[in-house]
């Protein structure tokens, strides 16, 4: 299932989202499969969650049901039960025995940079793209770590919308994760770019990295991880 993290709901952490989902599943009376054991948990698995404060149009979650259901019915019921801003926009039936996580190789991002002149952003982008590697540091779970922010950036360009400079990025998923704010740190470290207002990042999509450097749809027919139930059951829908 693809879901969004829009508006003020972008301030949810991944733990918050997981809890909100579990309760919505119960309210919507989705017949969940539970794990075995002493304290059974509904079977829910998450893929690449956006950080707290980052908005997203493309987060993914897989759930396992105890009964066969029409996918669209489950999606609609669950969506109605989720808070506005966490919207379930798409659901397909997973093909058995495949790993969805392997399909998700890169993300397309958009970062709104209010009060930043487009020209200085464009200049910073030019310098960034000329470099082979740009090292920044960030606190991770394992302490302070230095990593390269240039390598995973597949593409980067600057535009303007409603008087606000916008940075467009395609970034590969690597370990440790290179997040939009890491790329901004990289930009700032090689240029005199200043961001007086907190930047607002949104993930527009995530999925397989195509040969032309774009991000594909991981739920699209033909991808090994998923088959659209709408296609299989087109006649009945």
């Amino acid at each position: 299932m693809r879901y969004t993290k829009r508006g003020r709901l972008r301030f949810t952490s991944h733990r918050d989202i997981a809890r909100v989902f579990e309760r919505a599943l119960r309210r919507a009376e989705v017949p969940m499969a539970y794990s075995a054991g002493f304290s059974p948990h509904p079977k829910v698995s998450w893929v690449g969650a956006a950080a707290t404060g980052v908005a997203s149009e493309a987060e993914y979650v897989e759930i396992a049901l105890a009964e066969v259901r029409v996918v669209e019915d489950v999606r609609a019921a669950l969506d109605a039960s989720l808070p506005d801003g966490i919207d379930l926009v798409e659901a397909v039936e997973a093909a058995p025995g495949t790993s969805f996580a392997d399909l998700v190789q890169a993300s397309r991002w958009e970062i709104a940079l209010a009060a930043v002149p487009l020209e200085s952003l464009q200049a910073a982008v030019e310098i960034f793209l000329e470099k082979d590697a740009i090292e920044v540091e960030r606190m991770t779970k394992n302490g302070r770590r230095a990593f390269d922010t240039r390598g995973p950036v597949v593409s980067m360009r600057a535009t303007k919308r409603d008087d606000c400079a916008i940075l467009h990025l395609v970034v590969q998923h690597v370990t440790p994760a290179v997040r939009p704010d890491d790329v901004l740190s990289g930009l700032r470290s090689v240029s005199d770019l200043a961001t007086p207002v907190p930047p607002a990042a949104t993930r527009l999509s995530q999925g397989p990295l195509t040969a032309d450097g774009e991000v594909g749809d991981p739920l699209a027919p033909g991808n090994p991880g998923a088959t659209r139930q709408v296609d299989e059951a087109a006649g009945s829908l």
Partner: protein
Amino acid sequence: MPGESLFSRLEQLLPQVSKPIQYVGGELNSTVKPWEDAAVRWCLMYPDAYEVGLPNQGVMILYEVLNEVPDVLCERTYSVWPDLAKLMRENGVPQVTVDAHRAVRDFDVLGVSFSTELGYTNMLEALDLAGIPLHAADRDESHPIVLAGGHAAFNPEPIARFIDAAVLGDGEQAVLEMTEILRRTKAEGLNRHDTLLELAKTGGVYVPRFYDVDYLEDGRIRRVAPNHPDVPWRVAKRTVMDLDEWPYPKQPLVPLAETVHERMSVEIFRGCTRGCRFCQAGMITRPVRERSITGIGDMVKAGLEATGYEEVGLLSLSSADHSEIGDIAKGLADRYEGTQTSLSLPSTRVDAFNIDLAQELTRGGRRSGLTFAPEGGSERLRKVINKMVTKQDLIDTVTAAYSQGWRQVKLYFMCGLPTETDEDVLEIAEMAREVIRAGRQATGTRDVKCTVSIGGFVPKPHTPFQWAAQADPSVIDARLKLLRDAIREDKSTAKAIGYRYHDGKPGQVEGLLSRGDRRIGAVIEEVWRQGGIMDGWSEHFSYDRWMQACTTTGVDVDWYTTRERDELEVLPWDHLDSGLDKEWLWSDWQDALAETDLDDCRWIPCFDCGVCPQLGTEIQVGPTGKKLLPLSVV
């Protein structure tokens, strides 16, 4: 513009603070109403962090009760953490509600619910952030009426200078009646003084400015008297008699953020008749009023459907005492068997019946730990506090628990109780050892654990111990250390006994605030001015800051805490009527000192404490004889 959303300004600050989700609102079952359509606008505050405040039942109930009135609007606000408070001050963003992010200062009433006195500095912080003058005397018609409620409001004298009014007891009817008065005073354009006078005249709202306190030369209170002919000498507490008429919260709030209680609660009765002499809640919430078994069943069902919670807590001061608790437990366990819904009962009763109940509620589920509260270490001390549990009761009960599959037992105690000696406290170690031995024998394994949890006793207003000398922190800390050593001494059980304790210093500050008078307001204000907030959090609480503030303001902490009061002393809260007869409280205090215990008035005819005759009622207990029927299959 009053009532406008300030979210876009707050939003700019949120990426820079920890756990921003706690400030954005949007909880399931929350309500946002148009500002202009509302005749009376309430803002309710729980003066602690969101994660503690959101699950508070009192705020949740009143929020829903008020919002059900078509032209009344109610929103919530909680304490903000220092990281956000700093940014708000730098950027001129005031304290706002979480619902529609409206400025708190724009509301008609700011109702603050105090479960504990340790929230007082947080109220000052919120008032300051809101741009509301700290002192009631400095406010004008443009500011909200600052109203205190909750258990600490039974002695609001230490915060008298900061609040405009206080309500004692149950809030459901009180907030609606206040709303009607405010609807009228606003329409008539009354000024602040006259509006507060209208509230005070009802006799159910305490307005400190209409009462003067005179002191004797030795510092004790000479008298507290009204300074206006229309206000009564004493202000009465509020009591909701029929809980089935008030099945709130009907739509419990479900937060996006993580909180301290990740479950839904259903209050199964109010009040308590056990008569534990240390327990303020048990005294001030009398009489007992039960919710019916069918009312409980309906609330559990509706609440689970509205929330999606996995756990339901059956809430009260002593839940196993509900007259139909057996049928309630069985009925709910039957209804929710196999649905991944778990039920819990705050279990403090020490008898075998409690084990049967716990067994019913954990049918097929986890049996991790059971909690019991003997409170006092020795038989003698338990007579003093009127907690009538013998050591044999406890051993029998834990033996039953261990044999039924529980492996861990938690025991709660207090230290520093009146008349307590080192020997009383040391008996706790022996009790814990016997619990372990009984557990090992019952299970045939060494895989049993017992945790002793102990904290300092704080004497509270409106209890038989309101006259008692509080133990000095040094006495408490010394006894806690003796107990720790005694537990460690016996190597055969030491590893099976866990030991958790709270040191005596925060308890002394709580004691100062609990039994303080109006002169303590200066201390609270000084502590806040020196940066004191979030006093309920050990990482923020500073004992030294409180003691320094006492020195600065000339307040003798010992005089307020470790001094025993005599029968005739005017206590700061004597003009506030909890329904309890002061003479009865005194005689119960004398019985305590004589180590005489008292029967539970639930089962014997008794009107001694004064609550029932005054309210013209008897305690409201079942049984209804009804049973919970299985839920029909949808």
